[in-house]
């Protein structure tokens, strides 16, 4: 094409290939776009790499145990038999106890702060509660060991036992450490999240809603409980999911007070074990590749649980938005 090459010398080269790409980059905007894009994509890369690494290093355990891993109850490093059931149980039970304590407490506090307290008082208190959310987990663990455990052993435990000791939930000896103690410590840790998010959501409920209820003769409480709170339903559910996600993955505070015993027991006073705790305790010491692989598979299970939880939270928000027909 050499003859025609000179005649088309003035034409702009076609917009393809590396040359075109570099040409586009001459504009500062495109460079900025690219740099920012790289970092945004980097997050995808990190997360994928994380899942990949977990998947790869848990290979031995996954192939040996298959789906049985989820309901095998033994954790036996001597005979190389590992199962996730006690840890899934422990993680779920401690989180459930935490929510049972934290949700009523948190919601009630949020209602107080958004509906009843004068604005200044409400602001100061919620500021303090936000600070609570910032306290590192290991400090909760410290308090757990030196305050909650002795309290449970000497005062709380016997008190609960004297009233509810006949139920399977509260039977058995009370050591101070165990599911209930871990649940209490977790509750203290997640209540600030519930409060701060719920309070914000409650504050966004339009005044007209409250006023309409009051105008119809409702008491303050009735207007709050039957009108305002349902309006803020999605946000409150969101805060509960947030709290749950935090509780599931919480490691240090739980490890220090749960008793470290991989068993499934009905009693809340019994010692237990969560996924995060067993990994923290045994990871650096797992002699044997299958042992280590089983621990990593547990990490994968935990990751899966938080993944599902996140997904559920999103579906819930979308569903309520569509169904309720009210602005989220």
């Amino acid at each position, binding site marked *: 094409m050499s003859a025609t090459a000179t005649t088309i010398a003035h034409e702009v080269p076609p917009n393809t290939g590396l040359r075109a790409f570099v040409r586009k980059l001459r504009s*500062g*905007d495109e460079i*900025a*776009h690219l*740099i*920012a894009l790289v970092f*945004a*994509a*980097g*997050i*995808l890369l*990190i*997360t994928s*790499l*994380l899942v990949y*690494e*977990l998947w790869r*290093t848990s290979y031995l355990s996954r192939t040996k145990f298959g789906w049985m891993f989820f309901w095998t109850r033994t954790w036996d490093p001597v005979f190389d038999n590992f199962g996730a059931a006690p840890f899934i149980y422990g993680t779920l039970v401690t989180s459930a106890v935490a929510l049972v304590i934290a949700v009523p407490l948190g919601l*009630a*506090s949020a209602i*107080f702060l958004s*509906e*009843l307290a004068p604005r200044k008082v409400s602001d100061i*208190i919620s500021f303090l*509660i936000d*600070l*609570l959310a*910032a*306290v*590192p*987990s*290991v*400090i909760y*663990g*410290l*308090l757990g060991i030196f*305050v909650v455990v002795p309290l449970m052993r000497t005062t709380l435990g016997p008190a609960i036992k004297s009233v509810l000791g006949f139920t399977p939930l509260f039977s058995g000896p009370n050591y101070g450490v165990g599911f209930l103690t871990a649940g209490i410590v977790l509750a203290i840790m997640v*209540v600030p999240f519930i*409060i701060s998010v719920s309070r914000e959501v409650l504050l966004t409920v339009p005044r007209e809603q409250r006023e309409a209820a009051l105008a119809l003769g409702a*008491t*303050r*409480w009735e207007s709050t*409980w039957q009108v305002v709170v349902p309006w803020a339903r999605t946000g409150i559910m969101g805060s509960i999911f947030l709290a749950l*996600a935090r509780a*599931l*993955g*919480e490691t*240090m505070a739980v490890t*220090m007070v749960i008793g470290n015993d991989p068993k499934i027991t009905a009693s809340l006073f019994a010692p237990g074990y969560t996924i*995060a705790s067993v*990994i923290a305790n045994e*990871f*650096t010491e797992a002699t044997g590749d299958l042992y280590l692989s089983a621990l*990593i598979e547990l*990490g994968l299970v*935990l*990751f899966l649980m*938080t993944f599902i*939880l996140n997904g559920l939270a*999103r579906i819930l928000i979308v569903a309520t938005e569509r169904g309720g027909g009210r602005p989220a």
Partner: protein
Amino acid sequence: MSNARIIWRKTVNYVMLTLTGVAAFGVVSVLFLILGYLIWNGGTSLNLNFFTQLPKPVGETGGGMANAIVGSLKLLFLAAMMGLPFGLLAGVYLAEFGGKTFSFVVRYTTDLLNGVPSIVIGIFAYSLVVLPVKHFSTLAGGVALAIMVIPITVRSTEEFLRAVPGSMREAAMALGASQWKTIVTVVLPAASGGILTGMLLALARVAGETAPLLFTAFSNRYWSQGWGQPIASLPVMIYTYAIAPYDDWHRQAWAAGLVLLGLVLVSNLGARFILARTKAI
């Protein structure tokens, strides 16, 4: 409506509303309990030794956590250097450039990463940074913390960038600035208060993390040299000392807890102060 019913409803009203107040004050008093307990137990053990001495062998008193304090600072430095710019730029992408589906995926993944339990991040950093080079290191700990800093920073950066009014962007562009110039000279400075707050809060959050450090930074009885050796850190020391039976170690754990909490609270307060000042402007 009958009188009895009205009285009942009024009683319920009064009782429930009081209960909510009780709940709120109950929660706040827990905070004061925590602070009080820490100050009481930790304050008495805070002495010059704590800040200047290295840990002593089992059974000998007078040891301190000087290396752990410096260790935590070094780890935070790494987390900041690696995580903050990453999160900032990703946040800029989401707020300023993003395409619809890609942004959705990135946001979802960021939330996912934020929700990953810190111990799992520790496993990841172990297989990524510790195993290949065959030793525990400050760098590995820094990487683990950086991974945790990124999602928090992305979220707050995006939020504060979005809060900058569109009119500012339009004004800049009307004056002939290109998009990137607008971002760098107008939008970012306008959102800087909030972004800085977010960064400070992210660092305060990871300062107290223990689990990811357990098998990355490990721990060290001595001063850690450079960035490739194991390093002591306040949270790990608190954990190790708290579960031991030595009273002297317990005292030191309280003292360390007080120092750590002090650091975290001061950062939080500082962050809010910055935010309040920029909002006022």
